[in-house]
């Protein structure tokens, strides 16, 4: 495929690199000013472009990614404090507050919920498979 160009292509590429940097380095103490510099944007311009594209400011997006990753870790059975520090939060208090604000329940309630769901899936996996699919694969017989 010919890689045809489009308006603002280089700007998009720099913006996407900044977004991917957050995706890959969310657990570190990220300096968002530094990201703007590396992408050759002024801080103000960077925040505005980022928000136009991703509907969140870079800082809001970083918090969003950390919460999403924490949910994955809690889903895998990690404890609340381990998950908090693993995704880059420095305080359990601010982690719990942000988590609850975003998800409507505390990290420990989410952990309990996910563990119960996991146990249910292990115990009765067929409850999560529509009958027609299960039958066609020979997992249930009529």
């Amino acid at each position, binding site marked *: *495929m*010919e*890689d*045809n160009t*489009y308006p*603002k*292509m280089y700007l*998009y*590429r720099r*913006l*996407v*690199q900044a*977004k*991917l940097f957050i995706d890959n380095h969310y657990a570190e103490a990220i300096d968002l000013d530094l990201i703007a510099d590396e992408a050759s944007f002024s801080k103000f311009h960077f925040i505005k472009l980022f928000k136009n*594209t*991703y*509907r969140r400011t870079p800082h809001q997006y970083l918090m969003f990614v950390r919460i999403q990753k924490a949910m994955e870790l809690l889903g895998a059975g990690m404890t609340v404090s381990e998950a908090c520090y693993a995704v880059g939060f420095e305080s359990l208090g601010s982690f719990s507050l942000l988590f609850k604000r975003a998800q409507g329940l505390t990290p420990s309630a989410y952990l309990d919920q996910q563990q119960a769901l996991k146990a249910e*899936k*292990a115990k009765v*996996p*067929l409850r*999560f*498979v*529509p009958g027609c*699919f299960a039958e*066609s*694969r*020979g*997992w249930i017989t009529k």
Partner: protein
Amino acid sequence: MISKMTHSSVMVLDQASAYDFYVNKLGFKAVVDVPMPQGGRWLTVSAPGQPDVEIVLSPVNNSMYSAEKVALLSGMIKEGTFGVAVFTCDDIYATYEEMKAKGVVFTKAPTKEFYGTEAIFKDDSGNWFSLAQLPRP
């Protein structure tokens, strides 16, 4: 009266590779990923903005089909016979650049069409999808 769609199936050549593609490259969430007691793996994913529509990543090599049929279907999937779905995004150029950076193969770069801006990409098996940014109402 039908109210909505909850599951739709995509045939894939390899579930482990499809998991990596859909979860790590497209950013989909694994909804159900359970081994079945009789063998086989039930694997569904959902698009970030649509958690209640499960895409079943269904291995072409399964107990439903004969070896001949598996070979025939695998060949057809690899050749790009099947167009599966349209996914939409808020900003097609940002999404396109991000997917390309993650190694997703596009067969059509974003192009303005009557109904919006569209690109075409392939999954790791060969199924193709439209990526579209629709005009804002």
